[in-house]
Structures are given as structure tokens and as C-alpha cells.
């Protein structure tokens, strides 16, 4: 049986549907990301699992225990779910120790047990020396660890993280992502992670759920999501993609030949009929350039970024973008030919 089951989870506010018929099974010890732009329903879904929002429809169960359904609603304090808020929500009037130990205090654990768990968790998040400090004396990164420790100390069934690293600077963000992933492995923790940053999701997740305007777009592991985006939105949101119109010229046994506007014929995996109008997605990195004096494609601009160079290429009235190794020798106005390694195809 799956560890967490979400069935037909729906949330409506008046006429607005924030989350639509969300179905998901999550296995134990997995890190699942809910990924999407602002307003896509990812945080609403997370808060429904936490019990902070009551679903309009649908069912939530963890380990077979129903937490929410048409007739049952278990309040958040009884769900044994740990949550780290985007703002950390560290209580300003309690020091680090009291903040983290609070769940144990509420559950009236014995002194010995509190000491034991606190020692372990403070070690885990590397806050051993800070336990008597007040929150305003801590940095953002330290406050986040306090929030994490507080969620972990109650040894919850599930850990919910709501954009936990978005308030940190880039370097710290990377560090924290590694640490969270490391923690997950060590504790075999089941984690649901909400983020709008696709590279974060890719780096950390076992499963990614891409959402848009309340509707699930695709569920899969990072490689599947990246290499086989199911629709234009996913292809656009993940990685960097160009979109060009195309027509299917022929198709057989799951392989097609597509005429891509401005580029030429390309082969790809799809099961569409001859004559279908399609949108073709080409990743910036999947394009190779070479000098070609007779080509109709010219270099519009070249931007050096240290580790790579970004080009805008003009195909008649359209333009596409590509990322090339930094030592490229193409200048504005050069005529170039392109070799595309891989395309994705979406029906219009």
C-alpha cells in the first residue's frame, strides 16, 4: 500500500478552483516535489495535507489512516506531520532550544526523552552551540535550521517543506538543498517539497509533480520530466526550450518525421498522424552551430556569460535561442547552420 494516498483532492474558493482533482500515491522515504509557477496550487495542496486548509472534495490518508474525507477531518495538531514554513515561523519570544523542543513539551514527553531527542536533532542540524540564543540573534540560514529541527524532533510520519530555501542567498540555497537531501537519506524521511524553482526540484526529487493553475500537468522522475515533457507547459517550465511550429510528414511504429519550420526534417518518437500540425520543442542545449555562408539563419546577438555563451539566432521572422560553450567564435551577423540533436513534439 502506498505510504501517502491523495485522492481527487480539490479546493475551490467560490468560483475559483485552486486545486483540481489531485491524485497521487507517494511511497515511503521518497522526496516528492510539487513544482509550478505562483498560483498553481502547490502550496494549497501542501496545506491541505497539513490540515491547515479543509479540502472541498477528496481524501487524504497516510499509512492507511484517513486524515481527511467527506465525513472526517483530523485537525493539524493530531496529524503528526512536520512542517517547515516559507517564513520559518520561528517564535520570537522563545530561544532556540524552546522553539525546537516545543512539540515534545506539548506531547508531555519525559525530561530524559526530551534531552535525548534534542541532543540528536541539534547535532543533526548543527545547532548545538546556539541552543540558548534568541531568534533575532540568528542568521536566516540558522533560523531555517531551527524550523527544520522543530519539524523533525517529533519524528513525524511526513515532512512538509514550503519553499524552504527561497529566502536564502544562492550559495546557501545550494548548501541547504544538499543538507536536506542528506537528512532525508539518513532518516529515511518521506518528504513533500513545494518549490517554483525547477533546478531545485530536479536536484532533490525522486518524483516531480508539475502543476499549472490547479491542474497536474505531469508526474514523473526528474529524467522523465526533463527528457519527455508531456505538454508545452512542462517543456517550457523545465529547462530552456524554444518552440517552433511543425507538420508531421510521416509516421510509423511510434516514430515520426516532422518538418520543423526553419530547420528542416527531424525524426522523433511520437504517434501522430501525417499532416498533424504540431509545436516542436528544442532545448537551448540541444543545438549545435557551424558556419554556413548560404544559410538563412543569422546570429542576432551573442552574450558571454563566463561559463557559456548565449546566442539569439534569427530564422526569418522568428528567433530561437541557444547556449553554447564559452569559447565559441560566432559574432553578430554571422550566417550559421544548426544541427538539432533532439526534439519534443506536442499536438497543438
Amino acid at each position: 500500500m502506498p505510504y501517502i494516498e491523495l485522492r481527487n483532492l480539490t479546493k475551490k474558493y467560490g468560483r475559483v478552483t485552486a486545486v483540481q482533482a489531485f491524485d497521487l500515491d507517494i511511497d515511503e522515504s521518497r522526496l516528492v516535489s510539487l513544482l509550478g509557477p505562483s498560483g498553481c496550487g502547490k502550496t494549497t495542496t501542501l496545506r491541505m495535507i497539513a490540515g491547515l486548509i479543509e479540502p472541498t472534495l477528496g481524501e487524504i490518508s497516510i499509512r492507511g489512516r484517513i486524515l481527511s474525507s467527506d465525513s472526517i477531518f483530523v485537525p493539524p495538531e493530531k496529524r503528526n506531520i512536520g512542517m517547515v514554513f516559507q517564513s520559518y515561523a520561528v517564535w520570537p519570544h522563545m530561544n532556540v532550544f524552546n522553539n525546537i523542543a516545543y512539540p515534545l513539551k506539548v506531547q508531555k514527553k519525559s525530561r530524559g526523552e526530551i534531552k535525548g531527542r534534542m541532543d540528536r536533532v541539534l547535532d543533526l542540524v548543527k545547532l548545538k552551540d546556539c541552543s540558548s540564543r534568541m531568534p533575532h540573534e540568528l542568521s536566516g540560514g540558522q533560523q531555517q535550521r531551527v524550523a527544520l529541527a522543530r519539524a523533525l524532533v517529533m519524528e513525524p510520519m511526513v515532512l512538509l517543506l514550503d519553499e524552504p530555501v527561497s529566502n536564502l542567498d544562492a550559495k546557501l540555497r545550494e548548501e541547504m538543498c544538499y543538507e536536506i537531501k542528506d537528512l532525508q537519506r539518513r532518516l529515511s524521511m518521506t518528504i513533500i517539497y513545494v518549490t517554483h524553482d525547477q533546478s531545485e526540484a530536479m536536484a532533490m526529487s525522486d518524483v516531480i509533480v508539475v502543476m499549472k493553475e490547479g491542474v497536474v500537468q505531469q508526474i514523473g522522475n526528474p529524467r522523465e520530466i526533463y527528457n519527455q515533457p508531456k505538454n508545452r507547459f512542462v517543456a517550457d517550465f523545465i529547462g530552456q526550450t524554444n518552440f517552433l511550429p511543425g507538420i508531421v510528414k510521416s509516421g510509423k511504429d511510434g516514430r515520426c518525421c516532422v518538418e520543423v519550420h526553419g530547420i528542416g526534417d527531424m525524426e522523433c518518437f511520437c504517434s501522430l498522424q501525417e499532416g498533424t500540425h504540431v509545436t516542436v520543442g528544442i532545448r537551448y542545449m540541444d543545438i549545435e552551430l557551424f558556419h554556413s555562408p548560404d544559410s538563412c539563419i543569422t546570429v542576432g546577438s551573442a552574450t558571454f556569460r563566463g561559463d557559456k555563451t548565449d546566442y539569439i539566432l534569427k530564422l526569418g521572422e522568428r528567433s530561437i535561442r541557444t547556449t553554447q560553450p564559452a569559447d565559441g567564435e560566432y559574432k553578430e551577423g554571422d550566417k550559421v547552420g544548426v544541427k538539432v540533436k533532439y526534439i519534443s513534439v506536442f499536438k497543438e
Partner: protein
Amino acid sequence: MKKGIRPEVWVLVFLILGLTVIVIYPLWQIVSRAFSYNGMLSLESIRQTWGDPLNQLALTRSLTVSGFGTLFSVLLGSLLAWIVTRTDIPHVRLVKTLLITPFLIPPFVGAIAWLQLLGPVGYLNKLLMWMTGSGEPLFIIYGPVGIILVMTFFSYPTVFLIMCAALEKMDATLEEAAFMSAAGKWNVLKDITVPIMAPAIGSAALLVFSHDMANFGIPAILGMPRGYLVLTTKIFQAIQNFGLKNNFNFASALAMELLIMAITALFIQKIYTSKKQYTVVTGKSAHPRTMSMGTWKYILFGFAMVLFICTTLAPITAIVLSSIIKAVGLPPGPANWTFNNYSYVLLRSQTTIRALRNSLFLGVASATITTILGGLISYYSVRSKLRGHQVADFIGSLPYTIPGTVLGLAIILAWSKPIAGVTIYDTIWIILLAYVTNYLTLSIRTTSASFAQIHESLDEAARMSGASWWRTMVDVVIPLVKPGLIASWFLVFMPSFRELTLSILLWSVGNETIGVSVFNLSQGGQPQYASAMGVILIVILFTGNFLTRKLTKGNYGF
């Protein structure tokens, strides 16, 4: 856990019902009494009352004194605000603190104080008479001029504070652009600053006008003895006139006039503030620079200090003097000083001792009740996503916007008859009910500002850590709102303690408040005792303010 109607919904329903009973029901009484005559539905009461030339005179006089009072308060307050925020006068903080001291003095005590200065036998009058050799006092503070003067002295701090805040928040670059366009200080002031401040000025003017129209103490002390009556004092007389049939109907009809005006003013305020075309509060620009005034800065400083002396220090000195004088009319030299008056009011007179005790009880009780009730209403208002919470907030804020005399009358009409065999009329409890109704909104405002500052995620984190709603309140919310709760307590205690307008209508023998006691002593020709009580009141209020500042770390209080 089975699903049901959330507890929040029940609490909200209970709150709204309760508020409807203590707020809407009494107000409804006024409307229904105004439209009845001899017990039947009729326009006769209104016809007789509004048509009576004496009542029309009272209305005109209300408008006159309030109008001029507002005009002068706005001019004085705005000018002072500009001086304090925009010029480089020395000792700015001192000036600012001194100029808002009138807030701590009850206006009716101020009126009594001014009587000591410029009454028929007032010290200033005696001095001027001696200096000019005149046999008659040059200026007596009774009458409209005196009323306007004292109203101005007690209303200008409101304008001052509002305008200070508005001027400080104004975008400096607007004025700087004018300077860069070669405009001089005077032009910048009249072409840029004043027009942009117009909405704030209008807002302050409306507030002061409503306040002045609703004022009872000043016209009662400076107008009634000479027969100069305004609406509030006329209503007061109508209510006391038990011998006249339908007197409550007439009083209600008069009260309707005040009520209509108050609601209109509120309406205009709401429209005004929702327009917001002049929003010049920007986060990033620097504070407006102060202008260098050269030697003028000393003159302006002097002006502010003279003003302080005239409006505040002089009357306080006068009332202190009167409180230590052996008998009325004696010269104020040290030879005639005594503490007799204080020992009388504090130790010998049963009435005044009772009054002090009553006011203390009423102050503590209303502060505590409103803080708890107001805190609950604020919590649901700020945290709850239910739509009804704004209704609760609105109903709760009605009484404060209604003139005290009207509210007092409403409460008499609503609760003078026994409910379920229990009468609260003629007891101290009706006064307590009036105070709670009136000051509830102060508590709501203060506590909801505090609650709003506590991000909801702090509550939610506690819930996720396993704490129940009650536990969350105790461990997380209440400790963080404590300053707001303390502030709310004092903010209600102080006005309750010094209150006059409601208690003068609702008191009975044995249930006097300090306000009633001071008022009666003054009207009864015992200014030395009235002054002593007045000084005691002022001392307690200053102490209370000091405590408020200390306990809320300077965030609240003057």
C-alpha cells in the same frame, strides 16, 4: 474527529448577537422614541422639537462654536506641525512633548481651570483689572468666545499629531523638485505642501468638528451658567426635565439631530479616505528635509513655548492655585495657601471619596472587560477568513463615533426598565455597561493592530507541532500580543477614569464618578474642592500615561 460547524462560527455568531444587543438595541430606542409622541408613532415630537426656536438656536450655536473651534484648531495645529517637522527649531522633541500635554487633561477640567484664570473673579482678570485700574473684568470666559477658545486649546493637539504624521510621511522629492525649480520657501509651502496636505487637513478638520459637536463638558461649564446652550447641553436639560411629559421623546428628537450629523461626518470621512488620490507615502524616499530658518528659528521656538504656556501651563497653574487657596476670592499669595481642600476631598467628604472609589472600580472593570472582549473580536477579525468578522468590527465601532450624550440617552432608554427582574438603572452597573459599549472599539483597534503583526504561520507552526488551539493561544499568541493587550487596558482605563459625558446622565447618589463629582462641585460654587479633585485627576492621568509608556516600551501613550 467528525466534521461539524467550526467553533469559530459559533463564537462569531455569539459576538455579533451580543454586540447587536448592547449597541443596536439602544440606538434603535432613540430612533423609535424620536418618532413617537404620547406612546404612538408620530412626527409630533420631531415637529415640536425641531420647530422650537430655542432648539434651533441651540443647533446654530453648536455649529458656530464647533465651526470656529475647528477652524482655529486646524490653523494652530497645522502651523505648529509645520514648525515642528519642517523647520530647524531647537529642542524639537521637548516642544513636541509639551504641545501634546492637553491630551492628558480632561477638557471639562480645562474649562474649570480657565474659569480660575478668566472667570469673573479669575486671577488673570484680577491682574488685568489691577493693571488697567478698571472696575470691571475685561474678559469673562463664559459664553461662546470662551467655549471656542477652550475647545481650540484642547483640540489643536489632535490636528497637530495628525499633521505631524502626514508631513513626516510626505515624499521629500516633491518639495525638492519645487526648490530645484527656483521656488522660494513661501511658494513651496503654499503651492506644494499645503495642497498635498489638503486631504490630511480635511480629515483632521472633520475629526475635530465631530469631536467639538459632541463635547458636553466645555459648553456645560462655560455656557450653561449663562444660559448659552448648545445641542449637547440642551439634550442634557431635556433628559433632566422629568416633569415634562414626553421629555424623552423630545430629548430623542434632539439627539437625532446630533446623530444625523455624526453619521454624515463619518460618511464623508469614509468617502474621503477611500479616494486616496494623494497617496504620497512612498517607502524609499528620504524624510523631508527641514528648512533652515536662520534667526527665525528662535522666534518660532518662542512662539511654540508661549503657546504652551498660554494653553496648558497657565490653566494648570491656575487650577493648582485654586486647589490650595483657603477660600475663594483671596489673593493667591503663599500666605493663603493650605492643604485643607485636599484633605477634605480625600479624607472627609464621603461624596468625593466614593467618587474616587467608583471611578477606580469603573476604570479597572471597563479596561479589563473591553480588553478581553476586544481581544477576542480582534483575534477573529484578523485571523478568521469568515466574512462576518467585519460586521462585528463595524458594530463595535459605532458607539465611539456617536456623541456621548446621544449614547447616554440611548442607554437610559434601553436599560431603565428591569430585564428579567434585574434593574441596572440607578446602579453603577449601567455606567459600566455604558463605558464598555463606548470604549470597546478602542480595545479592538489596539489589539487588532497587535494581532496583525503576528504572522499566521507562527500559529500554524504551533498547530503542526501538536498544540491545540487553546495551547497555541497561551504559548504563542498571547505572549506576543501582550504589549497590545497592556496598551489596550490603559487606553481604556484612562478615559473611563476621567469620563464625564456618560456618567453625568447615568449617575445616581452613591454612584458618582470623579467627573460627576468635579462637575457638581464646580456648578455648586465650590471651586476650591473642584480644583483639588481636578488636580488629583490630572496627577493620576499623568501617572497612568507614564506607566503606559513604560510598560509598552514607548510604543503607546503620549
